[in-house]
């Protein structure tokens, strides 16, 4: 019996490590996920059906989130100290057809264990007739910069519409009329950033497993009711939309965009893949960093494990061990060269040529001009069984070809320990920022409760400090050169 248990554990671990580092772990099976939202330190998302997923850290997910009402494709927004949850349902229309309706309900907390948990009676806020050019499903909220609450909804059958809700009651604003804002998409979402309203829609074919062509596109407008134009000036009412994310990374059918802001400069997008090739082609929750390029949202690629130069955005110097710069043979070869001499390729400096000169114990870390030498090449590897954060696992950062690992010291400085042990101070949170650069944070939080960032205190000096998106001191690039 014990043997069987051990075999099962081994099998599970094998399956866990076989998954790409970009995938969430645990129970990630969901369709039409709502915008991920944090409540009392936990992450929640609700899907079609009655349930949802929850996570302590944003990386490992379990079931257990509770939403009443059934229906499809919910969304959730925090307003004040309450959560407004919307979902779409249907009821019989004429000739056996189904009429779509959008409802909202309140709860004080999303934690089903809390005594404050419990949903109010659902209120109907939007609907469409069963022969109208609209099917009222897939609601999505937006709290505008002026405190006005909006809800978009609709699917391929006709138009995407937007209505205004009362943020105090969650009900439809009296007298408000629905406005058509897009066609040929579903699973919409709304964002507001830097004076622009963004409408995200899911184009393509849903619910066809590995053949689902779902993809997420975007248009933007100065007005919440449109017109939403794409980068070609094409109205989303004419089918326009600029691609945010399509299939790739062994998964098809990204859809149901959700926007999560960690803090200034650190944004995430949640969505589902219709089919994850590493998980039997099932529909799964996914999270990516969200980048902004020329005023347009773009999904970041998943961080790729590998060996990199870690370059400071401050001056362009690179993270390196504080060891001797070992000269390679040969001097200047520019003058008095016979052009007829044969041209040969020089070898790069090898780790074994220099490693014996490095101290055996801890070695300091600094920044220097990149010379692609062994003490400047870092291998970044996911450690998925050590937990994570929204969208990614923690990583170890080691000198390529060694187990010498970047680590935080007890007094909040940087060092490189001779051997990676899996200790928390050797684990790093790597997140791509909205401008495409990265931040690198410790797993260990300081007494203040915050994770410290890798910070350039001088061109050549690196320490741990507070992350500040407005400073290039806190930004890094992973370069393969």
């Amino acid at each position: 019996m014990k043997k069987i248990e051990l075999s099962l554990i081994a099998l599970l671990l094998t399956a866990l490590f076989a998954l790409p580092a970009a995938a969430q772990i645990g129970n990630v099976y969901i369709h039409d996920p709502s915008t991920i939202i944090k409540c009392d330190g936990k992450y929640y998302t609700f899907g079609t059906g009655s349930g949802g997923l929850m996570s302590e850290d944003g990386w490992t997910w379990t079931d257990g989130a509770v939403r009443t009402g059934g229906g499809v494709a919910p969304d959730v927004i925090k307003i004040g100290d309450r959560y407004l949850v919307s979902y779409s349902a249907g009821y019989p229309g004429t000739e056996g057809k189904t009429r779509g309706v959008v409802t909202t309900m309140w709860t004080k907390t999303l934690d089903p264990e809390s005594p404050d948990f419990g949903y109010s009676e659902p209120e109907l806020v939007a609907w469409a007739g069963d022969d109208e050019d609209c099917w009222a499903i897939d609601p999505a909220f937006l709290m505008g910069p002026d405190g006005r609450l909006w809800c978009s909804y609709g699917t391929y059958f006709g138009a995407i519409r937007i209505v205004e809700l009362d943020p105090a009651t969650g009900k439809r604003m009296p007298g408000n009329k629905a406005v058509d804002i897009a066609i040929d998409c579903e699973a919409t979402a709304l964002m507001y950033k830097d004076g622009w309203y963004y409408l995200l829609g899911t184009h393509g074919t849903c619910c066809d497993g590995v053949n689902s062509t779902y993809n997420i596109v975007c248009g933007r407008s100065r007005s919440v009711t449109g017109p939403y134009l794409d980068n070609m000036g094409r109205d989303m009412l004419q089918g326009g939309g600029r691609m945010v994310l399509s299939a790739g990374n062994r998964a098809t059918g990204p859809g149901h965009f959700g926007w999560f802001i960690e803090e200034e400069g650190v944004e995430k997008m949640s969505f589902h893949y219709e089919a994850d090739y590493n998980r039997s082609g099932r529909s799964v929750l996914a999270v990516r960093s969200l980048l902004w390029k020329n005023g347009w949202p773009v999904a970041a690629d998943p961080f790729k494990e590998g060996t990199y130069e870690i370059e400071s955005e401050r001056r362009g110097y690179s993270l390196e061990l504080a060891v001797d710069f070992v000269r390679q043979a040969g001097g200047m070869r520019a003058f008095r060269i016979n052009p007829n001499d044969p041209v040969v390729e020089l070898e790069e400096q090898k780790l074994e040529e220099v490693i014996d000169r490095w101290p055996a114990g801890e070695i300091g870390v600094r920044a220097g001009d990149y010379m692609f030498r062994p003490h400047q090449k870092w291998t970044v590897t996911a450690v998925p069984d050590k937990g994570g954060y929204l969208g990614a696992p923690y990583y170890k950062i080691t000198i390529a070809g060694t187990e010498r690992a970047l680590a935080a010291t007890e007094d909040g400085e940087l060092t490189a320990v001779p051997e990676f042990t899996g200790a928390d101070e050797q684990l790093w949170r790597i997140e791509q920022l909205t401008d495409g650069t990265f931040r690198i944070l410790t797993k260990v939080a300081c007494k203040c409760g915050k994770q410290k960032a890798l910070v350039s205190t001088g061109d050549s000096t690196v320490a741990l400090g507070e992350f500040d998106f407005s400073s290039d001191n806190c930004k890094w690039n992973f370069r393969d050169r």
Partner: protein
Amino acid sequence: MISNFIKRAALAALALGFFAALPARAQELDLSYHHPVLEDYFAPASAAPATPDEQGFIRRWSLLEPIAKPEIRTNAIFDDTYLNTEFAKIYFPEQMTIVPKDGQKVKLDKKTKLAWHCYDSQRYNVKLYRFATGLGLHPTEALFLAVTVVNVPEDMTVRMSVGSNSGSKWWVNGEEAILLSGDRRMVVDDCVSRKITLKAGRNVIRGAVINGPGMSDFCIRFLDMAGNPVTNFTVTNQ
């Protein structure tokens, strides 16, 4: 286009009880609305020649009542081979030459006669689904045929820009101009033909649009070599 998959998913959702009852309080709300009618989407073509709209979209079309294609259970079958085969089928002898008059009928078989309707679309796109429902006809699992005549003052080198839901093929003066394949949504300027020459005078544009479950529509305009809409021509149904 609601694909068959969505339809299946909706049915599965119903079976699983995903669809809820109408909230009790909603029973008190006025849920009445305007039921779509043909006139919301089309007007009878006038005797006077039409012009393209400001964005160059051609709104005057002769549309044949939908040819039933009940065998189309899913739009996933619309690959290039399937569509080329379907669009090559001849349902009535004059199919590729007719420039129909309003009300003219064609005979598909002993039981089936279909009528042409000459309309001006009220919108930039031609809502075939609403054309069918407006006439009380089955709007899905259907092949739609469309014809119009473009009259240009002089030879013009243009590209034909088409968006269609779902697959479609278009011919200019009998020559195939473009195929839109796949389970496709109607998007303005989705597919654009190679350079074609509209000859001075009368040019016949002919199209076929096919769809399984879901809405069908198309939009067509001509673009000049700089990508700008062409508007200096008239559109007639003869």
